[in-house]
């Protein structure tokens, strides 16, 4: 696979947050070194299959995920957010990031549908190729691009039901 650089992933994140989330640039920055990450208890991810197999994941706390949903839906700061909207919003962010990561690859594969859970499924075949701890409005989220280790045969994930993916 071609190297997916930290700069590539940062540019994608900047674009996604500036266009979709905040309507302004510069709202996302690297998480300050030495500062512990907030507790992360929700993660959204999409899997890429094909010549390059891997995953893009976005981890954060439920509170931050709710804030992201409010931002995407242009809701007031403390408006209630349903679980469905929280899951949908975080999943869609991971989906857009994953689609843009996939576009960096020299050979196209297929992108799975976004999935959301309390934690990533354990996958010994996957290793992080880029991990970006991020600061969004003073709260932490972590974007990770994972690659599958071919020696294990199974790509990160591979759990989507048939018919739920396309190019």
């Amino acid at each position, binding site marked *: 696979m071609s190297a997916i650089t930290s700069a590539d992933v940062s540019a994608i994140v900047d*674009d*996604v947050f*500036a*266009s*979709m989330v905040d309507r302004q640039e510069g709202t996302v920055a690297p998480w300050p070194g030495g500062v512990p990450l907030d507790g992360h208890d929700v993660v959204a991810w999409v899997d890429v299959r094909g010549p390059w197999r891997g995953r893009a994941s976005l981890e954060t706390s439920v509170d931050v995920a709710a804030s992201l*949903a409010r931002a*995407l*839906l*242009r809701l007031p700061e403390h408006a209630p957010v349903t679980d*469905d*909207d929280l899951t*949908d*919003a975080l*999943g*869609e962010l991971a*989906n*857009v990031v*994953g*689609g*843009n990561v*996939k*576009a960096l690859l020299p050979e*196209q594969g297929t*992108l799975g*549908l976004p999935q959301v859970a309390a934690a990533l499924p354990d996958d010994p075949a996957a290793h992080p190729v880029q991990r970006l701890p991020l600061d969004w409005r003073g709260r932490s989220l972590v974007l990770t691009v994972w690659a599958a280790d071919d020696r294990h045969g199974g790509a990160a994930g591979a759990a989507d039901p048939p*018919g*739920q*993916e*396309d*190019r």
Partner: protein
Amino acid sequence: MIHVIVADDSRVMRQIVVRTLRQAGFDWEVREAADGQEALEAVRADEPDVVLSDWNMPVMTGLELLRALRAEGFGTPFGFVTSEGSAEMRQLAEEAGALFLIAKPFTPEGFRDTIEPCLA
């Protein structure tokens, strides 16, 4: 008034697409569909002026929707709004009869610049 069907399995994204249409100056009448099959049935029931569809959806993808529409004789103007904008996908979209492909993330300006020429 132009009548559009917005198909995306994400309710949040449908809302963003509809909002972006308005911000781009397209004050269209909108119907929403949660996957390609719903969109296909909505077109059969009342053909819109344009369909804006996500690509990757459960039940029926956007590409399957477009191909089904063309196979049934619907020439409805069709555009993709999708998280994947590779050259390969743009070619697939064009070959299937799509007028354009807008990659996510997008802006109102991007919507206007892409859609307006297709309305002429």
